[in-house]
């Protein structure tokens, strides 16, 4: 029985491989963003340019932040 094997394109090795590679990179990208936000906070404090330090969402919560559960 081919019960547990899916034949859908999304479940092929090529697509899955791509997705997992992309996910790794997206997470790495998110980490970089976290680092950058830390720098932004320090920068805003030193320069007094508070508008540069403020972000509406926390990193990982904004629509432009990658979320692995998507």
């Amino acid at each position, binding site marked *: 029985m081919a019960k547990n094997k899916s*034949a859908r*394109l999304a479940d092929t090795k090529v697509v899955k491989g791509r997705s997992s590679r992309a996910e790794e*990179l997206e997470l790495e*990208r998110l980490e970089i963003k976290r680092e950058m936000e830390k*720098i*932004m906070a320090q920068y805003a404090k030193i320069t007094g340019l508070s508008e*540069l330090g403020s*972000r509406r969402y926390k990193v990982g919560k904004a629509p432009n932040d990658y979320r692995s559960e998507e």
Partner: protein
Amino acid sequence: MAKDKYRDGRYAEARDTAEVTDDAEVVGMDRRELIKYLTESNKKLARQERQLAALAEQRRSEPDKIELIIDCLSAEKRIVDELSDNMVATVDTGDMRIANEIKTRMMPHLKRYNSLVEEYRAKTGGALTPASYSIPDDIIAKREYAVLPLLTYTTQPADDEYDDGSSTHSVAIMSAKEFAKYTAESERAMAPVRSKLENTVKKMSASDGQEKAILILTALSLEKQLIDSDIELVGASVKSTSPRDVQDAKRRLNADAKEYNSLVDEYEKLTGGKLTRASETLAQDVAAGREYDLLPTISYTVNDTANGDTEEEKYKNAKKNIQNAADNEKKVALTALEAKINEQANKDLSVLTKHADFKVSMLESERDIARYRFGMAPKASKKRKKEIEKEIAAIKRTHREALRYEESDNKRYYAVVKNDPDTMKVAKKRADRDKIASLRGRMIALLNQRDEINGKLMSIYTGSEINNDGSSVNQAWRRIKNEAAERAVKKDKKLAKKVARLPATPAEKQSIYNIMNKKLDAVSTLALCEHRLRKEKLSRAEARELREDIARQRKIMKQCDSDVNWRAEQIKKRGAKKGGAGWVVGFIVILLLVLGAGAAFLWFFGQDLLSGLGL
């Protein structure tokens, strides 16, 4: 020009600009070159026709959308232009049979173009230039032919759609119409520069000596501005969904670079001095995203040799020259930095777009295949389709929002890079300046790191495509999958009917249909994998994965076939057993009835029989 108001309050302005024939690139081929050229062109035409078909499909769902009529017109124009080029090349080599074949191919496009012009007129009252049916005959007769006009249009949002315009909007991926709008804006901005350049060149030819040298330098400076604008245009054209836009932008940049170099030649001839020339590969480098050399800003100082400079004046001039050189260097560095920032920020936004495209393409693929199902009631299929539509709409909505937030994030990050710690007013203390400089350095390093990751992500999301033409690739993939699924449905139709006739419960039948559907998925996925392996340039790892997928799909198909047969056999056997057991039960019932009847007979007539017998 026609200005049309949409129902939702937006406006569209369409205009056509006459184009002239430029066949220099396609004439002078020998037959072998012609065949090669036509083969390449046919591939291009197939792609353009697919794009046109997609637009026509879109128009069927939104027949009142004027933008789509203009997009269809532009798509038809591109095809007619390509066919015209092919005809010119063919007529030039004297192969009239092929030329006539191309004519037959071109006529339906001209008819469709004119019917679209008519539809546009009926819907908006605006007049666009119709196509001339004599184009193919004119080409065959080697006469000047009427090239279809270049269609551009701009859309204006309804009043409530205006944003505050406080930020410059970088677009990750542009449609042909967005790029046309972008080009028009750029042309408008550069119009005064072009006019100044024309005047300067006119004056140049009527002057000589130092005056001429100064005018050449002025012209060079104006030409540089045009080149800078062209560079931006080429950079943006790469993001356009139409490959022709890239070619047009490159052609424009090449022409301006050529003009710049001819001015440099003239200057060198006149003064003997040396100036930096525009690179011959500038357009290619910009389009390919490679490093390129920016042209230096031109400045000059005038020495009045007639009066003779004093030592002090000479010193001042020298000092001024050094200052100018330093300023130029700074300007060049700043321009380079801005170019780099724009490039990185655009790539970053493109990644988000490609990510959304990737997710949407998977859902679209599922939606397509939902049409080809065995056993599933149409209602359930429609419901799933609607769900997918909703999911796609949600992805697109989130994507738009994500772009907005990413843009605002980038604006903050790159502000750190743009602000020079040495000249920042806020950094009065030396220690603060040093700290700001160190934060800036770290930020640049992180942004570069992110850019590197973005590059990798782009290659994952776009596959092996080089021109960001993901949508048409996706359409080709979907077409291949659909065709394979359709063939499989036709092939298994009889089997589905047999399954429907089996003596089984609806749930049992559905479980068999599910296996058949899995085989359908496998068939379509297999067709796509085989196509990709055959046609695409893949990395070794990806080719290996594809081969593994192909083997896996074949195995699944085989397994599905045997599963369906096995289940059908089981159901048949069970039916047969039920039939056999029925006979046995019937026989026993009859036997019992016979025995019962015998016993009753003996009970009633037993005494009489015994007395009758004398017992």
